[in-house]
């Protein structure tokens, strides 16, 4: 029996639980007798702690403990890195010494009977420092870029330098050139749910109800920090209220919750404040990129030089795919990419939706747009003329590539043919109207994953896997995969996620969950059916665990990426400079769409994220001490309902037999990629002013 449930717009299976409050998030797992912990962050940006007056605070009402580097435990911090952690450097060892590496770094933790008491005590704790002026500005001439060590390895996934042909000399010889610097501000993820951990020890065993996109890695990391075997640690996180990458790594607050719980001999609950989420849990690094294009007069690209620099901390080299797309998005014989890092006195950045690609594609797609105006060629046509037959960077075919189909579909739905090519030539009443577009791309990743399937005597099935659902609808889409594979109606399949003792799954990020976990669930369902065929059930559950991973031979033969096209229309007030996105259309080639309703929702969310990147989001650091001055939802601007116009997401029919048995490439990250350049290009078309620094704000377009 088949149910053909893959591809149907099934509503969220967990929707009711979420809207009724039945879904439990990390901070909902209150434990009997728990105490509350509040982190005290450094108020200097670089220096040393010279004094902590704990005694008066310890006497305050309800205070159970004040833990600092002076009285806290020395932790083993055994070596541990997953692929989600920077390959070079060492994670922050929290409360192990007196050094302050960045503003807001945890320097103490206060534990009390109630949250109020802990907050009071934390605010009253007086700490003295010696302070130096930190270096927090990527553009500061004193800052010295480094070549990322991991990027120098011969088999680096993110090579520091790549080259084909001779891009520099081809650029010099090119009849038409664009050579510009593009900048993107530091951004914070700002999910709705704050980071939260409830920690409870039982002897040498620790349970963490903790917001995590990667529970098995949180288990491994905390095991390493405390020098315990991983099986002593259980991490539980059934639901996530948005994350966008901020909960991929295990940050110091998880360690601190566990330290506090052990010290006070009670379960401890620790929830970060919104403000703390601006410096304690990673951010999209600020980047500066030089993008140089050379082309013939008829629009054939002859050279691309892409030099990108991202900020990182002094203690870890955070890398992202800043320059990766440049080698294969277009056909051109000469490409040079150089990726550098700038260590600053800041916390380590981390992956934020569309990490690397979103930033790199902004520079590339704005530069291509600039080239289109120099050449007088329609931006879509320019892209068509440089559409490659194969991945020229890897020198192998794409498993599938529907980029021009995406452009054709999105252009038609958007009404691109109504656009007048001349900048500043379209008006709506007083308003300047602009239309812009851009390409998008994101890798079709796939990581090994396990899953367990169990058939029960009542004809229902249970699926267990240590994956997460941060909001895209993983519960729903995985239920569809299981139901279809087992031939059961979806309501007879129960999926459980987010426990580290379930079969291991890769991090819930990188748009690889459907490919990886979906394939594992499919394998487990097939295995359990085989098992069931072998023996009569006899009232006992039948169980099977299976693994899935991409066939390495196929992986070696093909270049696997999703592609998309994004079109945006903006209106700019020529008097006061207000910039409003009026509508946007995206079309994506992502292989098989498991659930079109969720896929559309994913895309709309990603487009809104890209809109924030283009027009609003930036975390501003005070150069004197590195503090974020707008660490507040009133001052860190994200699009609100009134900003968000009609957004459309379409999917081109794409059958990719190579990526995996499900034929899925993944979705989520790509929806943010391409939006920012489409909007920036539309702003240029509206105003005639090219703004190369994100976010584009009123003050940038005032002097048109």
């Amino acid at each position, binding site marked *: 029996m088949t149910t053909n449930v893959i591809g149907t717009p099934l509503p969220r299976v967990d929707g009711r639980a979420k809207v009724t409050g039945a879904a439990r998030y990390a901070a909902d797992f209150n434990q009997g007798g728990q105490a509350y912990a509040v982190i005290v962050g450094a108020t200097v940006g670089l220096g040393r702690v010279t004094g902590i007056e704990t005694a008066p605070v310890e006497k305050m009402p309800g205070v159970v403990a004040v833990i600092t580097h002076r009285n806290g435990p020395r932790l083993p911090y055994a070596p541990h890195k997953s692929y989600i952690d920077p390959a070079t450097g060492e994670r922050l060892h929290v409360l192990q010494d007196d050094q302050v590496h960045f503003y807001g770094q945890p320097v103490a933790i206060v534990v009390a009977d109630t949250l109020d008491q802990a907050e009071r005590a934390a605010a009253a704790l007086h700490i003295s420092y010696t302070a130096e002026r930190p270096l927090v500005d990527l553009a500061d001439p004193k800052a010295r870029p480094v070549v990322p060590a991991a990027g120098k390895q011969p088999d680096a996934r993110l090579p520091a330098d790549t080259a084909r042909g001779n891009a520099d000399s081809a650029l010099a010889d090119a009849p038409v050139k664009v050579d510009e610097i593009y900048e993107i501000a530091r951004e914070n993820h700002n999910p709705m749910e704050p980071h939260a951990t409830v920690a409870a020890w039982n002897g040498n065993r620790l349970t963490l109800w903790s917001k995590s996109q990667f529970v098995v890695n949180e288990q491994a990391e905390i095991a390493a920090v405390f020098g315990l075997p991983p099986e002593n640690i259980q991490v539980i996180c059934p639901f996530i209220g948005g994350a966008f990458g901020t909960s991929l790594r295990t940050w110091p607050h998880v360690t601190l919750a566990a330290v506090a719980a052990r010290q006070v001999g009670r379960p401890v609950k620790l929830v970060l404040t919104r403000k703390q989420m601006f410096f304690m849990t990673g951010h999209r690094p600020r980047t500066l990129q030089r993008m140089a294009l050379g082309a013939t007069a008829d629009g054939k690209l002859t050279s691309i030089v892409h030099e990108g620099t991202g900020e990182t901390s002094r203690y870890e080299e955070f890398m992202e795919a800043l320059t990766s797309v440049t080698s294969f998005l277009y056909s051109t014989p000469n490409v040079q990419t150089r990726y550098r890092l700038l260590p600053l006195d800041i916390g380590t950045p981390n992956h934020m939706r569309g990490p690397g690609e979103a930033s790199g594609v902004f520079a590339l797609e704005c530069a291509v747009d600039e080239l289109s105006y120099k050449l007088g060629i329609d931006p879509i046509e320019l892209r068509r003329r440089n559409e490659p037959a194969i991945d020229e960077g890897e020198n192998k075919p794409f498993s599938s590539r529907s980029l021009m189909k995406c452009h054709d579909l999105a252009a038609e739905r958007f009404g691109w043919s109504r656009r007048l090519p001349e900048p500043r030539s379209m008006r709506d009443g007083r308003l300047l109207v602009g239309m812009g577009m851009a390409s998008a791309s994101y890798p079709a990743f796939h990581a090994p994953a396990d899953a367990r399937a169990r058939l029960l005597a009542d004809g229902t099935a249970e699926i267990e896997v240590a994956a997460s659902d941060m909001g895209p609808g993983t519960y729903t889409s995985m239920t569809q995969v299981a139901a279809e594979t087992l031939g059961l109606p979806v309501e007879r399949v129960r999926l459980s996620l987010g426990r580290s003792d379930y079969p291991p799954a890769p991090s819930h990020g990188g748009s690889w969950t459907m490919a990886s976990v979906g394939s594992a669930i499919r394998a487990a369902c097939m295995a359990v059916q085989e098992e069931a065929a072998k023996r009569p059930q006899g009232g006992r559950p039948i169980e099977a665990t299976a693994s899935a991973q991409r066939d390495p031979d196929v992986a070696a033969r093909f270049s696997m990426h999703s592609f998309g096209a994004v079109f945006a229309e903006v209106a700019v007030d020529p008097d*006061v*400079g207000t910039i409003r996105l009026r509508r946007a259309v995206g079309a994506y080639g992502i292989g098989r769409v498991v659930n079109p309703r969720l896929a559309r929702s994913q895309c709309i969310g990603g487009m809104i994220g890209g809109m924030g990147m283009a027009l*609003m989001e930036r975390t501003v650091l005070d150069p*004197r001490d590195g503090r974020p001055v707008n660490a507040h939802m009133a001052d860190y601007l994200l699009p609100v309902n009134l900003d968000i116009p009609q957004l459309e997401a379409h999917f081109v029919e794409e059958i990719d037999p190579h990526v995996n048995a499900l034929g899925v490439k993944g979705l989520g990250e790509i929806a943010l990629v391409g939006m920012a350049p489409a909007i920036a290009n539309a702003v240029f078309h509206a105003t005639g002013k090219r703004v190369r620094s994100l976010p584009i704000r009123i003050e940038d377009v005032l002097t048109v």
Partner: protein
Amino acid sequence: MLPFTLEKVTSVQAAIAAASSGRRFIAGGTTLIDLMREEVDQPAHLVDINALPLSEIRIEGSDLVIGALARMTDIAAHAGVQRLHPLVAESLVEGASPQLRNMASIGGNLLQRVRCPYFRMHDAPCNKRSPNSGCAAIDGLNAGHAILGTSNHCAATHPSDVAVALVALDATMQVRGPRGERTFPVEELFRLPGDTPHLEHTLLPGELILAVRIPGGPDSRRARYLKVRDRASYEFALVSAAAALDVEDGVIRQARLAVGGVGTRPWRLRTVEKALIGKPLDRKIFETAARLALEGARPLSGNHYKLELLPRTIVRALEMAGEAA
């Protein structure tokens, strides 16, 4: 948050008595609770005045009288306000978010504290929060700060939108204190920072705002508010302008203009008004007059753009008011 006592009062007299002994009023609480949670404001005793009979919105002749406890949402939705004083309704809706407007009172709105980020950070100097500690904004990040009415001690803008409208419309406020009642222009509620930025308003100890009265005029039914900001909602103004023009036969008989986002208090622009009187509705005239707004402007390192944006906002607001006229 520091522990505090909370008492409810049901009469104006009791409220004034409580405030005279050093207690602080709380109405909607949309600013105060926020600041108390950050321990920027640390009142030990609060007096809940929400039960006082001060929520009425009424029309008296051509005047609009708004009780101090009337909520922003209710004022903006009031048919009489929309008809007689659309500028007031418009400026209210442009402020805050629906949730905040449902709670915030007009009296509290006028007394709201500044949005300077350093004011809200205990570990940064701020003369307003702790006198003589210095100003982190003057040499710090100050893109949102004022260019008019600043001092070397403070350059924070007054954040209210509706206050800009009230100052433009010559609204008055009625207050009562231990020494009786008095009425004065809303404009006089706000102090310049000078060297005492911690003193923000001119209310005397124990005084309670009873009502705000907005006189009707030939221009008020067509007055307009323009708020310029990067996000369409829930953001304080980069620059805003409230403009009212009384026009007869294409000639401006009377002009009233106030701006927000640029001054340390809601900023009335009488020199610009004077330059408009007797002139036709003409963009060139508006542009020339609007430049006068920059008299005495002192930009900081991060807010030079306001020198450009302020006159442009004025011109556009005048055009809007002129179109309505």
